[in-house]
């Protein structure tokens, strides 16, 4: 906030995380109704609407929206569900497809004009998804492998010397129980956070040097900023898609690991 009331010779100020991500409420006074909240709800409505338009009354011969969304379904089924869940894939497709579409739209809102804020860059949203998957993972693990069996399979992988289990079991436990869900959420959050910062930085460079303070020396810098903004927008779209895919893939991996104790 202090950047806006800068001292007399106006200088370029790089955007700080605080001003980019601590947004004021849209309606003053309603503390909770901020831009990410609005976008999150809109994204959920959009996902439901598009999916309903496609799958509400599915035809054996697809046309229109159904074709497009079915392509997404095929992608999730063949790239995410089947490699990690095998024959259980169809049972979990509902969850994985919802996850994938929701995360994808939350991410893509970062490059959609007017929205231009990736919902997933507020950690609450990835955390909710990751915690849901975490709870589901533990529930499934205990249900399918038994309470003791689950932790035994997790903490004591076979094929290691006996004495070293004492040293390794805490690592396994911490890795599976705390680090994995944490990184699951933070990977998505951090990618969106950093991507949004990059985009904001380059677009601000372009805006500042071409519109606010147009000088012969600064103009090329501004042009570079605009070009980089375009390049990074394309790159961000790729990253956003990739992160949605990875999020769904990791969810499938955790579910698969809970269903079948391997190793």
């Amino acid at each position, binding site marked *: 906030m202090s950047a806006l009331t800068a001292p007399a010779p106006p200088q370029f100020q790089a955007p700080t995380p605080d001003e980019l991500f601590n947004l004021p409420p849209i309606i003053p006074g309603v503390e909770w109704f901020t831009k990410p909240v609005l976008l999150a709800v809109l994204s959920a409505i959009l996902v439901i609407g598009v999916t309903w338009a496609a799958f509400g009354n599915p035809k054996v011969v697809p046309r229109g929206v159904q074709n497009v969304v079915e392509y997404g379904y095929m992608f999730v089924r063949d790239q995410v569900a089947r*490699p*990690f869940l095998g024959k259980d894939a169809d049972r979990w497709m509902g969850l994985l497809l919802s996850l994938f579409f929701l995360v994808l739209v939350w991410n893509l809102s970062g490059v959609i004009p007017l929205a231009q804020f990736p919902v997933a860059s507020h950690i609450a949203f990835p955390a909710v998804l990751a915690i849901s998957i975490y709870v589901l993972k533990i529930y499934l693990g205990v249900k399918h492998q038994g309470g003791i069996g689950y932790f035994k399979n997790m903490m004591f*992988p076979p*094929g*290691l010397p006996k004495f*070293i289990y004492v*040293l*390794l079991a*805490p*690592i*396994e*436990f*911490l*890795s*599976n129980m*705390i*680090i*994995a869900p944490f*990184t699951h959420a933070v990977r998505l959050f951090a990618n969106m956070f950093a991507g949004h910062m990059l985009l904001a930085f380059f677009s601000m460079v372009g805006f500042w040097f071409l519109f606010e303070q147009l000088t012969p020396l600064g103009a090329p810098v501004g042009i570079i900023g605009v070009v980089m903004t375009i390049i990074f927008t394309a790159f961000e779209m790729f990253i956003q898609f990739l992160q949605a895919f990875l999020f769904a*893939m*990791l969810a499938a*991996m955790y579910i698969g*690991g809970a269903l079948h104790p*391997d*190793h």
Partner: protein
Amino acid sequence: MSAQERRPEEDGRDFADAMWSIPSYLLAGMAVYGGIGWLLDRWLDMSAFFPIGIVLGLVLAGYLAYRKFSR
């Protein structure tokens, strides 16, 4: 799952599994043994156990990941 009859996609699945698990193992190893070292440091009023714990945790976690996933 026996080691003899493995299909290619299962290999790929295991590999992806390993790729996503290894960083988390390393972090967990550092956290556990670094944390133990840090507590020892506080208790004994020293500063040597924390780095030792960090390195020990990394080595142990790396050993675990290597033994677990490379078969």
